[in-house]
Each structure stands twice: as structure tokens, then as C-alpha cells.
């Protein structure tokens, strides 16, 4: 389904359009809505956002490409992003990141065979006192170790096995 004319998003889109002085200012929130609908910022989403804001799709795509939270390719159902920046790395984040990829059998930026987990690393997420940490679909999970992470993975696998369960 599209985001334009979709009753699920209509109120939110209008709210964003109302709060800025220009339509163009709403490009970031609308790209988040497109990502929510399609799971990534796909060409349909780019075109719809451009149409709503009277922008050229190229202009919208440049915004999507500049900011790291917009994904320009499909991801697993759970996008795990480990902070490996200095404060986290001092507390073992690099080793944790390597272990997590091995545990899930993925390369950096890759997705597990069951399509559930994509793993990559990110820069500082402002959670340095709770290292190691990562975000899963932009929700923080902190003070991680292998045991706690195995429990989380099991929980997400069980959640994904439920019928009609949405993203994250």
C-alpha cells in the first residue's frame, strides 16, 4: 500500500506539513513514514514523498542518501546496529560486534539466512555509560553481554514466528 491516501498516515503527514514554514521541511519526517510503510526507503516511497512536497525525486533521494537512518536497501526484520565508537569499544564493543556477526552467521551489513537479522555498526548513540549496546529497529538495548543477547535473539525469533506480527 502507498503512503499517499493511506488513512494510517494521513493525520501524521498533515501534522508534519502544518508545523513547518515550508513544505520542504517535512521531507525528513515523511521519509521516516515511507520507511515505516515499505521497510526501507524504496523508489515508490521516494516518488510519493516528492509528490506530496512538490520536490524532484532526486532531491528527496539525496536526503535519503545523506542520513544513515534511512535504509536504501531492504533489511532483515530486525536491524541490529552495534555502537563500536570509542567509549563502547573501551568496554568490549568491537569483540561484541564480531561475536554477534558470528553468532548469526552474517558479514558486516549482511542479513541472516532466515531473513530476520541484519547486523552493522554505528557511531556514538549517546549511551556510553551502558556499553556494550546496540539498537534494534532504533530501540536501544544496553549493558549487553553474550547471555543477555542470546535471550534477546530468542525473544525476537519467537516474536517473528507469531502470525501477523509487524516489523519490530
Amino acid at each position, binding site marked *: 500500500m502507498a503512503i499517499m491516501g493511506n488513512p494510517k498516515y494521513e493525520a501524521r503527514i498533515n501534522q508534519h506539513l502544518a*508545523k*513547518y*514554514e*515550508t513544505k*520542504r*521541511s*517535512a*521531507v*525528513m*519526517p515523511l*521519509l*521516516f513514514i515511507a520507511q515505516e510503510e515499505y521497510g526501507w526507503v524504496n523508489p515508490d516511497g521516494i516518488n510519493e514523498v516528492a509528490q506530496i*512536497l512538490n520536490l524532484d525525486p532526486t532531491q528527496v533521494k*539525496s*536526503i535519503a542518501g*545523506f*542520513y*544513515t*537512518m*534511512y535504509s536504501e536497501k531492504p533489511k532483515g526484520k530486525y536491524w541490529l546496529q552495534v555502537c563500536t*565508537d*570509542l*567509549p563502547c*569499544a*573501551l*568496554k568490549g564493543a568491537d569483540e561484541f560486534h564480531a561475536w554477534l556477526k558470528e553468532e548469526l552467521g552474517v558479514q558486516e551489513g549482511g542479513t541472516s539466512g532466515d531473513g530476520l537479522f541484519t547486523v552493522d555498526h*554505528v*557511531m*556514538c*548513540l*549517546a*549511551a*556510553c*555509560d*551502558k*556499553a556494550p549496546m546496540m*539498537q534494534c529497529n*532504533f*530501540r*536501544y538495548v544496553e549493558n549487553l553481554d553474550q547471555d543477555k543477547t542470546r535471550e534477546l535473539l530468542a525473544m525476537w525469533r519467537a516474536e517473528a514466528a507469531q502470525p501477523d506480527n509487524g516489523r519490530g
Partner: protein
Amino acid sequence: MHILLRGRDIKNIKQFDVYEKHGGFAGMKKALAMEPAEVIDVVKASGLRGRGGAGFPTGVKWSFIPQQEPVKFVTVNADESETGTFKDREIMEENPYQLIEGSLICAYAIQAKAVYIYLRGEFWDIGDQLDECIEALREKGYVGKNIMGAGYDCEVYTHLGAGAYICGEESALLNSLEGYLGQPRVRPPFPAQKGGGLYKEATVVNNVETLANVPFILSEGADAFKAIGTEQSTGNKIYCVSGHVKRPGNYELPMGATFRQLLYEQAGGPLHDDRPFKAMLPSGGSGPMVPLTDEVLDTPMSYEDCANIGTIIGSASIIVMDETVDMTWVASKVTKFFKHESCGKCTPCREGTYWLDKVIDRILDGRGTPDDVKRIADVAENMAGTTLCALGDFAANPIIHTIRHFPDDFAQHVQA
């Protein structure tokens, strides 16, 4: 006493009734009874300086706004992305009304039409909470038309970034908010000037912690605020401690407390008792590294005293490293951060961070030469001061100061 992290002392202060019962909005009531220019004078007299890192006097910044301009804005910098910084997050999570009150006082003082709170995208849940607070305030008549019956109108909005450190730089933040790439602007015109701010209107851009200080300054008075801290660095500061300490976290102390008080009394000293401290980055990845000598430990954490030991207090994001840490590896980590976060606009930063990263990787791999160490110092020195924003200088700092203080850490990788 906490002025900022009051969520630790007062249960449920994130609820409006609790916040108001504990003195919330008393500062704003006082401000609304004053002339806008008087409010600016009070903030000037308090000596409050910007808590985002630069330390610019807040009241002076507000006074740059041309009063005759019909449209003005306040933009709150809640992009908190400096490596090692996690203070604004706690303010907004645990004491959100204080930030909004401070923002509204600023808005009244410059007669702004609206406040935009620019949050890093990962803080979407904090944005949701702030939106709820804003709606609650609207119902009370504290946001919107005729605020508190004082005849002043102002809207407050939140905006989410989407993962770009550079948007913490004020002109890049404004571009991002307008729907453009988050890249710094050529200045002048400065944000406070017509043509330089949000939608080309005069705009104050202040950090979350800065504005969260303002309600106290109005309700208790400039003298009460100045009584805390040192002569040139007034008030409390939140210090974010991370790395090799026993108790990492946020600590709110007066400016002028010493690094020793913070790192030993508050943060519990070295993580492992048998591994003494080696060095710290006192202002996240961007400030100059200093060795943790006794002299440094006994230095007061103020703008002026940190300048004396060759560093800055900046955002006070103190990353602590013990003796096991190889400073070449630290330089590499911080360089990878800036390489990733360089917006690509200015050549010295875009190319410089790329080459620094490449050569440091070579040094760490054992393929470097003593000339490579000189080369990265040379590249870094040629980046500093040559870019539109401070990111170029920030990226040069970890190289220049790390080599200066820890030459042996580099030499060990390049000797045959």
C-alpha cells in the same frame, strides 16, 4: 543539589503537576512579567555559557537578535551526537518540562514565533514524550496563543534528525530542519542575523543543557546562579563519564570541581584497581586529549582552567582510558568517526579524514614508517582552521594531541 538532573531527586518530575509543584514554570511566570530585554539582561548577568561545547555566553547570544525583525525563531539543539555525550538524553527523558520552560523563556526574551526542538533521530521516543508534554502545556495555556494570559504567542515543535553528527553544528542543523542536506553554511550571515537563521529569519540556537539552566536563573535570580561555580564558569555542569571507570554515568557538579573529584569520588576511580588511568578526552572525540597526570587531575573543570592545561571542557564528555590502551588505536577510532561524519562539503575535511584513516590503518597494521607518523601530523595541521565548520579542527585534534603526548605509542608500530 541537582539543578538539571532533578529527576534523580524528585520522583515523577516528568509529570506536569509534579514539575509545577516543585517550582516549575515559576521562572517563566517571572519572565512574562518582565520586558523581554530585561530577561536577556538577567541571563547575561548569570554568566551562563553554552553547554553544547563552545561555551559562548548565552545572554550575549540572545542579545544579538535584532528586536525589530517581525519573525524570529528558537531552535533547540538536541542532536547530542558527540562521542561520549549522553547528558541531554537524561535531561529530556527525566525532566522534559524544564527544557521546554527554558526554551519558552528564551523564545519570550527574543519574541520568537516558534521553538523547534531538533532531536537526533534515534531519540524518537524522547520526541514522542516531548510532544505529549507540549500538548499538555497547550491545554494549560502555556503553549500557543496568549501564553499564561500575558499576550505572547509561541508554538513549540519537535523535529527528528536521521543520523548525522554534523547536524549538531548549528548552521547544518538549520539546513537539515529546512529539508536540505545537513551541511554547514557560509557565515556571515550568522543564525542570529536576518538571512542567516531558520527560514532566513534571526534565530537563537541553544543546546538542551543550556536552556534547562534558564528556569532556575529566572526563578532564583542571576546571583544565585553565579554563586555556583567559578567567576568565569558559573553554575552546575553535567559531566558524562565513560570508559575505564567503575561507575560511568552522568554527574552534575558545580563548574570548577576538579577532575579528581569527578573521576575518583564520583565515578569510583579506575575500572581495574591494578590499571591506573593513562589519559582522557575531556570533550568527547573532538577536544584535545590530555594525559591523566596529578596536575591534570587537580585541575578545576572550568572553561578557563582547562585552557591552561591545553584542552577544553567543551561538552564535558569525559572518556577515560587506562594504561592498557594504545593511543594509536584511539586515534584510529576517533578518526574513523570523523571520516564517517564528515559531510563532504569542504575538501580539507573530506579528503583529510580519508587519508588520515588510511595512513593510521597502515601504521596499526605494522606497515607504516616513521615518516607516516609525521605525515598524519602534517595532514592534521593542514586541516585545522581551513573548513567552514569546526569538524575539520575536531578531526585534527585527536591526531595532533595524541602524537604530542604519546609519541611512543606511535613509534612502537613503526619500528622495524
